């Protein structure tokens, strides 16, 4: 007993000494404890670690700026995301929403007001205190400020085109009011919070001395890294283009492990910029990287070296990544020009789209393009989302009980085509329209994406087998996007990013959505099925009850996949990842969080 006390006391001394050296004198009362290794928590499989070491990982592109608010691409946000935190966050293991800078929140009974209670006594990485002013600044002066160029404003907009009103109650309480009930607003309020004391000087609204729009170029790559301030685990320390970004530990980070050790464990977090995934693969095999996201094609090589080199290749054929991959069928083809009447009529026939769905040889795609490491996809909502219709209830296990499967079947596809009068009329081996002209459809994807090109090749090959002529023409990515938006494409294979929130797809699947590119004319004249989808999407956001929302989104997903078929889904790559065994807690890696992709960066350590 005495011994234990002594040991504990000793430990405490060591830790407090460490803490003094690193920033906080003692653990702030409102620190967030990550229950590493504690039973009945999502972290049961994890271990509390030890501090120290430099972690190396790799990425393909250079960062473009250090400004999280105006950044458009992950090459920048992978760093700014580590530097900053939001009021709430998604748990890297369970994908559930959990408190972050806010320690708790209450939702009013009418669902129109959310009150966030902030953690007290936290400090920015430069030692300045964190208060409600930073939250108000981030929302009112940055995200909702018209002078600031930001994508985040678009996720804050409410169904009636108004924005939430964010007000300060006291130094540690913030209230958000919306004009209508909007379930995803809680998630949107998780946008990163920025330091007012460091950034207010660049905002014209607060500092009229600077011209309008100054903030858009604030915190650029030429900013001295010592000026960068954040709340996240790591802060950028130095940057060399095409070589590396080095991040240092935030001395005031407020995450602690159950032993009272301040996180993150790593002293430094270094991201090497490499020009190709082949080079990063070589660097990983050469021992220069501690963890790496890998391609399906690289799995056999790494698997064969796993034991000998002491790393682990995480391969889970059943666990797909976020995002969708699909064939878009342009139902408005030639509408504006008054051409392509045959095609338009054909594309608007549900059975044609169903025939196409039967032509997607998913197994061949998975075998030859993904090395067996992908799963068939049928829903626009990501597999990982708690709203995925393959689950039994909100956040429940995936059973795929209600999956809408269009199995690969040349016979069924041929039968459907025969049924709508698309048959070979002149005996040349190719199917024709009723007027005798040959059905000849162009299939596009972006040149250079070998996987999508491969899907096109396989689909066109199978279509030819039943006499349906698809001409595969790869085009430049921007051309493809232009084709989508101008409704001049015929069949297009592309993908979209995804996430846990189904409503993020509203812009795509709503009949008047800006990305409803396969049927823009639906904005004025939606079909019955599209009307139903619109209604379901509206219903999904206006309830705060997740279980109720789940049922709504389930019906929505099944309707889209079975009746609408505007997009025919293909396959989704499985999660593949590799890390050296010396990286503790690397086993928690999942499509949402990896040691090298953030998410686990604060809790991984060197054994």
């Amino acid at each position, binding site marked *: 007993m005495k011994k234990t006390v002594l040991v504990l006391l000793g430990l405490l001394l060591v830790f407090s000494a460490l803490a003094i050296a690193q920033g906080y004198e003692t653990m702030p009362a409102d620190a967030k404890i990550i229950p590493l290794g504690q039973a009945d928590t999502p972290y049961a499989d994890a271990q509390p670690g030890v501090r120290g070491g430099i972690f190396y990982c790799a990425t393909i592109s250079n960062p473009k700026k250090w400004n999280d608010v105006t950044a458009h691409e992950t090459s920048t946000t992978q760093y700014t995301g580590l530097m900053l935190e939001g009021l709430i966050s998604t748990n890297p293991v369970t994908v559930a929403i959990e408190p972050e800078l806010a320690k708790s929140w209450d939702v009013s009974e009418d669902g129109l007001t959310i009150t966030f209670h902030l953690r007290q006594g936290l400090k920015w990485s430069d030692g300045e205190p964190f208060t409600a002013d930073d939250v108000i600044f981030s929302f009112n002066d940055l995200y909702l400020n018209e002078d600031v160029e930001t994508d985040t404003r678009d996720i804050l907009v409410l169904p009636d085109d108004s924005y939430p009103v964010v007000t300060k109650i006291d130094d540690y309480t913030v209230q958000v009011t919306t004009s209508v009930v909007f379930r995803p607003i809680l998630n949107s309020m998780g946008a990163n919070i920025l330091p007012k004391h460091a950034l207010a000087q660049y905002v014209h609204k607060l500092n009229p001395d600077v011209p309008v729009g100054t903030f858009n170029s604030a915190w650029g790559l030429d900013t001295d890294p010592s000026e960068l301030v954040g709340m996240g685990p790591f802060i950028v320390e130095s940057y060399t283009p095409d070589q590396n970004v080095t991040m240092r530990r935030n001395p005031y980070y407020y995450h602690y492990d159950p032993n009272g050790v301040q996180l993150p464990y790593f002293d430094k977090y270094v991201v090497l910029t490499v020009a190709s995934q082949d080079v990063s693969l070589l660097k990983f095999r050469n021992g220069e990287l501690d963890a790496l996201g890998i391609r399906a094609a690289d799995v056999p090589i790494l698997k064969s070296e796993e034991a000998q080199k002491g790393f682990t290749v995480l391969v889970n054929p059943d666990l797909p990544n976020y995002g969708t991959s699909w064939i878009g069928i342009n139902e408005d083809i030639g509408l504006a020009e008054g051409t392509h009447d045959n095609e338009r009529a054909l594309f608007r026939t549900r059975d044609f789209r169903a025939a196409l769905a039967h032509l997607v040889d998913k197994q061949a795609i998975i075998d030859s393009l993904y090395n067996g*490491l992908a799963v068939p996809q049928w829903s626009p909502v990501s597999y990982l989302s708690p709203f995925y219709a393959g689950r039994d209830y909100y956040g429940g296990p995936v059973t795929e009980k209600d999956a809408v499967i269009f199995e690969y079947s040349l016979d069924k596809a041929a039968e459907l085509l025969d049924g709508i009068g698309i048959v070979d009329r002149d005996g040349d081996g190719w199917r024709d329209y009723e007027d005798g002209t040959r059905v000849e459809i162009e299939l596009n994807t972006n040149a250079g994406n070998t996987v999508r090109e491969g899907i096109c090749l396989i689909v066109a*090959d199978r279509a030819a087998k039943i006499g349906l002529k698809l001409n595969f023409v790869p085009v430049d990515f921007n051309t493809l996007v232009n084709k989508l938006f101008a409704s001049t494409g015929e069949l297009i294979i592309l993908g979209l990013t995804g996430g846990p929130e189904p409503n993020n797809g509203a812009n795509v699947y709503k009949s008047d959505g800006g990305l409803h590119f396969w049927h823009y004319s639906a904005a004025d004249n939606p079909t019955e099925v599209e009307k139903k989808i619109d209604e379901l999407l509206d219903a999904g956001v206006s309830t705060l009850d997740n279980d109720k929302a789940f049922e709504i989104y389930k019906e929505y997903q099944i309707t889209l996949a079975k009746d609408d078929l505007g997009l025919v889904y293909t396959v989704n790559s499985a999660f593949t990842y590799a890390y050296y065994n010396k990286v503790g807690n690397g086993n928690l890696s999942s499509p949402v969080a990896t040691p090298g992709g953030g998410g686990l960066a604060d809790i991984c350590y060197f054994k």
Partner: protein
Amino acid sequence: MGLFRREKEPPREGDKQEYVSPSQWKMIWRAFRKHRLGNVGMAIILVLIVGAVFAEFFAPYDYKDQYNSYSFSPPSTLHFRSESGFSLRPFVYKTKRTFDRETYRPVFTEDTSKKYYIRLFVRGSEYRLLGLFKTNIHFFGARSEDGDEAMVFLFGADAYGRDLFTRVMIGGRISLAVGPFVILLGFPISIFLGGISGYYGGGVDMFLQRFGEVFMAIPGLPILLVIGAALSGFGLSAVLVFFGIIGALTIVSWAGMARVIRGQVLAIRQMDFVSSAKAAGASDVRIIIRHIAPNVTSYLVVAATLTIPGMMLSEAALSFLGYGIHEPMTSWGQLLNAATNISGIQEHPWLLIPGVFIVISVLAFNFMGDALRDAVDPFSIV
């Protein structure tokens, strides 16, 4: 300039001294024949050209046909020996693909119950020979005694189970054609503008020189990339992409060539025989055709031969940077680029075979050009 003159050997005793002057081309040919590496190069080029022209005949399959159950099949093993003894005629076995879930590698096992002999002139997929004659005779294929067919992948198969040998044969067409097409397109421009510039001089020369300089001031690879990106915007069919690449390569290469031709013409124009022709009252056209053209042609032949390998490599480089020939069409550059990754090198090295074809043909063209240059030189015009 005579940079590449061979040492002239003094006539040996006993050599017959002929006084009939052989034609210029005969002499070049004679000198060329002495150059061993050059001859090997020419022979290789001829073989490759024949292969490309009759590609569909030599290839056992259609280059687009997918045999997915043979995805990443290694090259077929040609057997000569079985339990039943030695057979002079090679045969293959059918293979079955299974996927090893432990190693994530496909495994191919031979089914030795039935032999499929390599036979010549077998019937297969239909095609048009030279684009004209419809036929289904292929040079070779594997058939059993009872006429059953087995796949034979001389160079293995790609991800979709397409026969690499077939694709190399078809791809050679594009790769071998890029250089000649650029020359066909660019040389007339260079010859015309460079010729006029050199022959007439003065204001015309001045103007054309400045015009050419604009093109020479445009950096080669960067502008190729910009043109490639601009072209990719039109969603061109594969054939047009090919011509787009040729156009782009022409744009960046014609001006330099024109400048050299101008210099050539300028030098010849000042030679005695041209001056005398002029004094004799020959017209410009006659002087150009009778006196200048023959002297420039041999140079052009050499320049053409040495341009081709550079263009082949450019085509491959463009493929790597994403602006080259792309699916469903194919070329050696595209094939090599698709295989140039770590899993290609380590897991399915047979996919790198197209690279061997690039190297060999570039070498062959260079040797041939080098030998031609040596051969042409006695006339001291290069």
